[in-house]
């Protein structure tokens, strides 16, 4: 680990965490109701920055105070999490958010009540802390469970180990939750682009066909909505290697939303958009128009269910979905009433996706931006 840099970050973060406690203490000693102001992570407090093409968080805050029936417990929990994070950083360990839940869970005094009952309670408090002191999850020495794999024309250094991603066979490299420079460094890459695939089965097909070798690229999947680690890695590829990111997802509202999250950021992590969103990312497929374009048989389509339709209509209304091409794409999907999964391309032959679809799309620059 690049320890000097790491140490200075750790020190700064501890200072910020301690400030939270100091402010509370000041108010308690002054006989005031102690209060924390937490930037709001809601639809109403994010906006789409047209210039930077990012979702950004606004200035609205929620106040959380102790002497308030609905907030007392959460106020205490916030301090508890802050205190635990300080300890974590001090001992130089990194742990999962589930671990942190167990570390801070205990019964309160002599009651039957616990500080936390479910991880669902502690996770949002961690996010609250991140956004309040403007610090990354990773800087708090925390990670979520990881997902996603990588192969391709690049060599990485991971915690000091050199990994040649051209030689990882069928499995590939598991992408960890924390991919910051202090842990992962890039070395020796000839890749011309990154192909980010929603699903691992398709990734596997592409890897088996050595797509990344033929087309000289890095192949990544995030198994659904890509976790922070994958998003942050993509961001670093784009920024450090200066290569484009192509996103290849199911043709349904969820797939398109994954693309939007990669490209523009998400509501919940709007405060991290600058460090995670990639405005130049390109949507390579599946498009609602691909069925006609590639003459896919009708029977590979799946009817949109109520949830799909609801979600489609919901994201149609988001300010960052107002680009005419996106609206057209989504409305056409709703009009046809069907969705397409990536696997549907297999109908045209097992390696259709590798030999025809992707090369054509990239060559023709047929993507949604």
């Amino acid at each position: 680990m690049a320890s000097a840099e790491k140490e200075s970050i750790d020190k700064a973060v501890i200072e910020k965490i301690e400030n939270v406690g100091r402010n509370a203490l000041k108010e308690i000693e002054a006989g005031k109701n102690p209060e924390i102001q937490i930037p709001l992570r809601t639809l109403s407090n994010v906006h789409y920055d047209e210039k930077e093409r990012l979702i950004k968080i606004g200035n609205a805050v929620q106040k959380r105070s102790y002497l308030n029936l609905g907030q007392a417990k959460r106020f205490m929990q916030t301090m508890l999490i802050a205190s635990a994070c300080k300890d974590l950083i001090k001992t130089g360990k990194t742990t999962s958010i589930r671990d942190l839940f167990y570390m801070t869970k205990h019964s309160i005094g002599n009651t039957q009540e616990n500080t936390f009952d479910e991880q669902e309670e502690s996770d949002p408090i961690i996010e609250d802390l991140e956004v309040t002191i403007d610090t990354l999850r990773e800087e708090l020495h925390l990670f979520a469970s990881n997902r996603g794999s990588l192969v391709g024309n690049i060599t990485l250094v991971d915690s000091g180990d050199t990994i040649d991603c051209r030689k990882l066979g069928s499995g590939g490299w598991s992408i960890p939750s924390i991919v910051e420079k202090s842990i992962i460094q890039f070395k020796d890459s000839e890749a011309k682009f990154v192909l980010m695939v929603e699903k691992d089965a398709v990734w596997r097909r592409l890897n088996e066909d050595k797509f990344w070798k033929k087309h000289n690229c890095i192949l990544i999947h995030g198994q659904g909505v890509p976790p922070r680690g994958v998003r942050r890695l993509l961001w670093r590829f784009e920024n450090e290697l200066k290569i484009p990111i192509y996103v290849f997802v199911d043709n349904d509202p969820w797939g398109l939303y994954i693309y939007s999250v990669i490209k523009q950021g998400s509501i919940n992590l709007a405060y991290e958009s600058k460090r995670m969103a990639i405005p130049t990312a390109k949507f390579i497929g599946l498009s609602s128009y691909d069925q006609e374009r590639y003459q896919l048989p009708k029977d590979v389509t799946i009817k949109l269910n109520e949830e799909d339709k609801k979600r489609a209509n919901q994201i149609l209304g988001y300010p960052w979905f107002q680009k005419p091409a996106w609206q057209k794409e989504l409305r056409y999907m709703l009009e046809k009433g069907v969705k397409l999964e990536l696997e549907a391309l297999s109908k045209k032959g097992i390696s259709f996706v590798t030999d025809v679809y992707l090369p054509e799309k990239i060559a023709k620059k047929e993507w949604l931006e």
Partner: protein
Amino acid sequence: MVEKELTAEKMAAAKEVSVAEFFEKNKHLLGYENLQKSLLTCIKEAVDNSLDACEEARILPTIYVEIKRVGETGDRFKLIIEDNGPGIVKKNIPRIFGKLLYGSKFHRLKQSRGQQGIGISAAVLYAQLTTGRPTKVYSRPSDGFTHIFELHLNTQKNEPEIVSEASVTGEGHGTRIEMEIKGKYTRGKQSVLEYLLETAILNPYCTLIFLDPDGEKFEFTRAVDKLPPEAKEIQPHPEGIELGILIRMLKNTPARNLRSFLTNEFSRVGGTKAGEICDVAGIDPKVNPTTVTRDEAEKLLDAMQKAKLQNPPTDCLSPVGQESVEKGLKKEVQPEFVAAITRPPSVYSGRPFQIEVGIAYGGKLESEGAIQIYRFANKMPLLYDQSACAVTKAILQTDWKRYGLNQSNGGLPSGPVAVSVHLASVWVPYTSEGKEAIASYPEIIKEIKLAIQEAGRKLGMFLSARHREHMLREKASIFQRYAEDLVASVSNLTGKPVAEIQVSMQKLLDNKGLVVDEEEEKKEEVSEEEESADTKRRKEYAQRDAGEEEDL
């Protein structure tokens, strides 16, 4: 095939039927559908008569009821009902008990329990039909004697038959009835005991003593020493009159001219109004009423009903009164809280009526399941047909959540609550002759709902005060509960010793713990709500593929 056609002559053997024969054959119409209900009906007719008589004579009622098993079949009972009322004068006894449709109340417009003169004689008829036994009546009408009659009812003639008759010296006043019937004695819902209990709830100025067939004794003791106001008789109001009735009144009136007919035989029609009505109808007010034709009568009725008249007088009503409604519920239900409302009189179809509502909460009331409903018409409990009754409909149409009760969609509210609703009227619109449910006139439903709302608001205030008190206590304990962990965390974050922070914290709690500004609390809740909406969104999205987190 050719049918042989009979002449009408052969089919002309029609004959007259007495009303007693009719009801003997149709006794289910009068509440004698089955053995259980028949027993209850007999008791009810006698007790209702006793209460009416006492109230009319301004006597605080004390009524003794006894039911004894007779013979070994298990379905024979002797019923004894005795009151301290005014008694019945000797000459009236046979026809009151031995003739259907005979009574003082039929043509009167004034509130009373009995209305038709059919109840007690139908009981006598039922006793005679099922056991062949005459009914025995002891009456002491303050004339120094006790008159004792044994009576049958001749159904073909609808006339009493006296089996025996005697008068012995006897002081005081009162009536005692003994009859033997076929019946079935039960406890629980729709039983004699339930009827007496509910009677005691709404008539707390009476004392009821009941000895059941198993020898168990129940006493419902008077809690109020004041009778309800006496009901006065009134004239009909033009609004409630039908054309056929008006024509008959015109024909039979002693009035010499139309104007005096109108002013004498209707309430709320004065001389000026009578003149106006005749004007509008285009009939000379001096005309002899008996010469008014059908067509003129029709115009007259139209004019009478379009004229702007005052509502009918309401001294024909005898409500129990707010205080008695409350006291009755208190003594028999023993709740934690009672609210009662007596609404001002109102009118449906020209007939005055008045609604009284009592709501009891907590105490000995069952806290599981739907609330208890007590329905009363002219002070009598209604035990059957709850779902068809205007009272039930009004309760269902009320939003009880507003008053702090649980209520599932379209259902009765639930909780430890009893609601008593009393309709007092000169003419109770029952849905059937069994007197079991009040018909759903919109005016009646509206008044019941208004009364429930008034009483409900009081209940709501009581419950929310209780809730607030509970919340304050809860609040203090919550702030205290989390303080230890909070202090420990702040100490770890700041390096200040726990003990020192503890002192400041306790001071803060003592000063501010119970007096947080409500306005502030509200504002903060809003943003918390917004936050949870976001959480919800994230969860929705997570449903797509469980196990995937958006970006945690």
